[in-house]
């Protein structure tokens, strides 16, 4: 549990004597569940208003796990088979942070992606691009004490889908993050700079705020590029963080 035993800034002091961190809900960040341009949302978004749930013990805690399920080569998607996969070899690295810039150490990062031809190793993916016998497209690693993670993989290809006429998904890698509290759970997709397909992608565009959208982009990172080996890309991931101090608790000011 190295690095996890620090004391969080308390968010609320209350009559019961339980002092819990509080994670404010981010505004104008996450997509609306009802985003008609992405057709699969039509029958899957709740139509009743969400109920506000106060954050109590179950919400401010969360699973602190992963170390035991990360294999030696799980971070290197190019070395999980007998041969090397086709495609442009890349290094994707960055830090998992909270809003105040504090790193999230020892947290599990899971990724999955299409191969260089844009095909997933999945029974449901039948478009006529080749599978690669040397690529599964699944990785996991733990962040270090500074919240840093690193994967070696190949750049995922672009692939078509049937959401709209002539629809193509920009290159992307799926990321899954736990943080340290139930409130922090995040699933996202990392995109590559200068992809020509953003204009027609309803997932990218479901994030309405331009600044927020940009936070789903990795950046070319020459300092992470390894000469005569692989291109480096940096992708920092920011999870919602706890409120800074008890004195900012608005509810305490009024009554």
């Amino acid at each position, binding site marked *: 549990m190295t690095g996890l035993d620090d*004391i*969080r800034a308390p968010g*609320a002091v209350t*009559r*019961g004597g*339980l002092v*819990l961190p509080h994670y404010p*809900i981010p505004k104008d*960040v*996450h*997509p*609306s*569940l009802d985003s008609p341009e*992405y057709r699969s*949302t*039509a*029958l*899957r*978004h*709740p*139509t*009743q208003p*969400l*109920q506000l*749930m*106060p954050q*109590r*013990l*179950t*919400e*401010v*805690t969360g*699973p*602190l*796990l992963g170390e035991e399920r990360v294999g030696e080569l799980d971070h290197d998607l190019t070395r999980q088979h007998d041969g090397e996969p086709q495609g442009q070899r890349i290094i994707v690295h*960055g830090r998992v*942070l*909270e*809003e105040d810039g504090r790193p999230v150490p020892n947290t599990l990062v899971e*990724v*999955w992606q299409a191969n260089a031809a844009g095909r997933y190793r*999945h029974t*449901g993916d039948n478009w006529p691009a080749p599978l690669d016998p040397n690529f599964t497209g699944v990785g996991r690693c733990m962040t270090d004490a500074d919240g840093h993670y690193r994967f070696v993989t190949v750049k995922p290809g672009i692939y078509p889908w049937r959401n709209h006429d002539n629809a193509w998904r920009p290159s992307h890698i*799926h990321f899954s993050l736990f943080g340290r509290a*139930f409130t922090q*759970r*995040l*699933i*996202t*997709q990392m995109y590559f700079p200068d992809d020509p397909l953003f204009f027609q992608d309803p997932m990218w565009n479901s*994030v309405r705020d331009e600044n*927020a959208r940009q*936070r*789903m982009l990795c950046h070319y990172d020459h*300092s992470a590029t390894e000469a005569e080996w692989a291109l480096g890309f940096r992708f*920092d*991931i*920011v999870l*919602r*963080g706890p409120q800074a101090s008890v004195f900012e608790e608005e509810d305490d000011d009024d009554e």
Partner: protein
Amino acid sequence: MSDQNAAVGAGGRLGVTPSQTVGPFLHIGLPWPDGPYVVPEGTAGAVWITGTVYDGAGQPVPDAVVETWQADPDGRFDHPDDPRGAAKPSIPGFRGFARCDTDADGRYRVLTVKPGPLPCPDGGTEAPHLDVTVLARGLLDRVVTRIYFPDEDAANAADPVMSAVPPDRRGTLVAEPDGDGGLRFDIRLQGDGETIFFEV
């Protein structure tokens, strides 16, 4: 190239990374062989919670992931942010967390034990519950609900989260005996009997 690409937002805080859907190919990335097991098979008092995720047309959702998080039977968490102190669970192998992707019929399953009740900061008590995350193709952000237990009528009635929910919809949060020693908890994303989902 800057060392850090996380943009600084209002108040000097970093901007949160937006959520995106797990997409249709979540089955390659998320499932764990031991995912459904909050407790190991054979644990005394363990119960299977099973259910189906349905869409707004009443069709099963075969590309979803259901995750659960809960206290141990003593109502404790092995977590440093629990102000009562991190407590090692009394049950060997208790993980508190489960993850199960839905099958072709939209079904998931979780093997667990009933958590203990929890003290609230305001002095009340929360009834035994599991927090639930549902991820799926077509969900651009997770949805969150809770599973309560059917043999806890009094505790459920006093539970502050349950009490804040419209009475005619509270039933969507309570698992039902499945007639086979287990519990059933279906999740309806939309439409008739829509499950209560929380903003947390």
